[in-house]
């Protein structure tokens, strides 16, 4: 058995550690919730943590592995959330099982997020430079504004659409129901998401990105990140691989969005939950967790998402503490002195080894 582990490829071992960490954390939380020890606050935080971990993994694929900055991943999350929730609203009465319903919503939400990622990628990923950041930033805002003026209703005659004016929808007022009601968004979404579904989705996303990165495709993607000209010179189709990575990245963000939309009964598009605020928040998770390190993204998300909630006792001062902790973490992670110190401390530990850099974990 010991041989089995020592002979294993280093990256495989690393991945297994990540999966094991998630499963152990899941088991502990399930026991705590089951025995009633966990507080309501903690129970409420579990699904959002899974949501943001998934989106952070998606963004990390784009930022850390592909090396392109995206400031609109919350926009893809938004597409996934709205298309997924819309599918659930339409089909919920006809589908007998909740899990099946969620799977359908998941497929639809992920597909549409990927589609939009693909469409955006067509013009932008052919360019050099930071254009992707600019375009995705605008994309996130455009999506929110469109959803805020979009009205969709359903009655016995079928679906009704209206743009910017809810009175123009022409729907039977007594029997019709609103599916998307402008700025009010979607309400009364059945809450299907739970911690188990979240963790399964998280593991599946991890599985996909790990396998992508370890494959020939992944090496091509990283070659583009490291040196575009060299990659081009050995015959790698730059646009194709960039599109592939970006589309998968958007799709994973969309899957996170579907999980998000089935957690709360209401879904609205605001800058807080799907705008640049959230995109940058997720980017912070990725950067502080370490670019290219998926495990790091999850850890950073868990810590940074829980922190402001657990500091609620400090009332408004929690914002101050949160900022200080962010700066502290940044220094701890990236300052050269801190890295030297970390390695020194780790080499003193009995099982310590020199830290390795540039590995995909």
């Amino acid at each position, binding site marked *: 058995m010991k041989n089995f582990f020592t002979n294993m490829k280093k990256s495989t071992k690393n991945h297994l550690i990540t999966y094991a960490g998630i499963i152990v954390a899941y088991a502990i939380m399930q026991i705590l919730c089951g025995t009633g020890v966990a507080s309501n606050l903690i129970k409420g935080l579990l699904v959002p943590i899974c949501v943001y971990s998934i989106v952070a993994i998606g963004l990390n694929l784009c930022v850390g592995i592909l090396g392109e900055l995206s400031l609109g991943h919350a926009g893809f999350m938004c597409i996934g959330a709205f298309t997924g929730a819309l599918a659930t609203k339409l089909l919920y009465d006809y589908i007998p099982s909740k899990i099946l319903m969620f799977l359908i919503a998941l497929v639809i939400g992920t597909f549409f997020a990927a589609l939009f990622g693909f469409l955006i990628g067509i013009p932008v990923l052919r360019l050099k430079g930071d254009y992707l950041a600019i375009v995705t930033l605008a994309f996130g*805002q455009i999506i929110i504004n469109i959803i805020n003026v979009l009205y969709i209703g359903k009655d016995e005659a079928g679906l009704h659409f209206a743009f910017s004016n*809810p*009175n123009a929808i022409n729907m039977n007022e007594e029997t019709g129901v609103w599916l998307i009601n402008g*700025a009010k968004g979607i309400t009364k979404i059945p809450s299907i998401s739970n911690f188990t579904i979240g963790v399964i989705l998280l593991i599946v996303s991890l599985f996909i990105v790990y396998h992508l990165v370890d494959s020939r495709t992944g090496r091509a993607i990283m070659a583009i990140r490291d040196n575009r000209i060299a990659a081009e010179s050995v015959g790698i189709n730059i646009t194709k691989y960039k599109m592939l990575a970006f589309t998968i990245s958007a799709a994973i963000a969309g899957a996170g969005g579907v999980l998000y939309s089935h957690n709360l009964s209401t879904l609205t598009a605001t800058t807080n939950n799907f705008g640049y605020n959230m995109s940058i928040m997720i980017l912070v998770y990725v950067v502080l967790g370490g670019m290219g390190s998926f495990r790091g993204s999850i850890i950073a998300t868990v810590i940074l998402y829980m922190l402001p909630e657990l500091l609620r*006792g400090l009332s*408004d001062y929690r914002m101050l503490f949160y900022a200080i902790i962010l700066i502290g973490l940044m220094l701890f992670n990236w300052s050269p002195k801190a890295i030297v110190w970390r390695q020194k401390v780790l080499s003193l530990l009995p099982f310590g080894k020199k830290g390795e850099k540039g590995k995909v974990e």
Partner: protein
Amino acid sequence: MKFKKLMSMALVGVMTLATVAGCTSGQSSNKDTFKIGGIGPLTGPAAIYGTNVMNAAQIAVDEINAAGGINGYQIEFKAQDDTHDAEKAINAYNSLKDWGMQVLLGTVTTTPCVAVAEKTAEDGMFQITPSASSTDVIVNDNTFQVCFTDPNQGTASAQYIGMNEIATKVAIIYNSSDVYSSGIEATFEKEAANQGFEIVSIEAFTDDTATDFSTQLQKAQSAGADLVFLPIYYTPASIILKQANDIGYAPVFFGVDGMDGILTMDNFDTSLAEGVILLTPFAADADDEKTQKFVAEYQKRYGEIPNQFAADAYDGIYAIKEAMEKTGCTPDMSVKEIGEKIIPIMTQIKVDGITGEMTWNANGEVSKTPKAVIIKNGAYVAY
């Protein structure tokens, strides 16, 4: 890599610790005080509303405690921040539940309130919102509103303009990214069809573009509108008033309760608001004794004039008190027991508050009369 391994262990440790921390603060409810929770935006762009609500609720709670409490028991009030976000509101709600909350005053804004209302319905908790005005908030039996619903405000405004023949051509400028604003706009437009005036221009803006309204105003002006309906909050409204003045456009401006507060804004020239008409249930300079006492206390404590959100919250706490006294609730009752007692009685009680005399119907809608006021010499005067 080892470091990361340590980190993943630390993560498990953090989660475990957090749970323990959560549970120690959880079960500490003592049985001789009522616990009322409040949720609203205390930080972020909507913080002014949440702060006003929590301040006023605290004043009401202190007054009640000083006068002997509810049924002889003291009340504790605790406010939690939701930053005007549905997800954070659920976290705030869970954290208040851990604290031992029995009744909820909140949430202040509509979107978070819809999400929280779903949770309170599950728990059977009595919820009264001071200011979340959408009809989506009160779909469940356990939720009641102190403020008017959006459709009522839109309809009432249109009827008011039509009946008093204030204008013949009306322009609307509203915030399409805001639930409150777009809700009122839609019902106003609907009711306008039955009234004797014509809507000549409808222009929208969003939270991100709420700094320049020259296009919208010029369109209203060139369409010949003699009244501009502003179903928006007072911050953008103040910019509209200023920019209208700059281009020399002087129609009648008609606002709703979100406009309240415009006179107390910093760096706003109140002479620009001369002649603005608004529908509001509360005027801070009303001369009845209760309002004056509340405004004086609020000014003493927080150094500013309370707005209508504050007044609604103050009345909300008194509505809870009235309902609890009618049903003889005691602090040792569970959340569900209190809910089961109070919810049916809400339709029978009558609260004479600072926003008028209030009764509730079974839907949870409040009934009170909106007052139209006009701003004259920097003060509200009944229109």
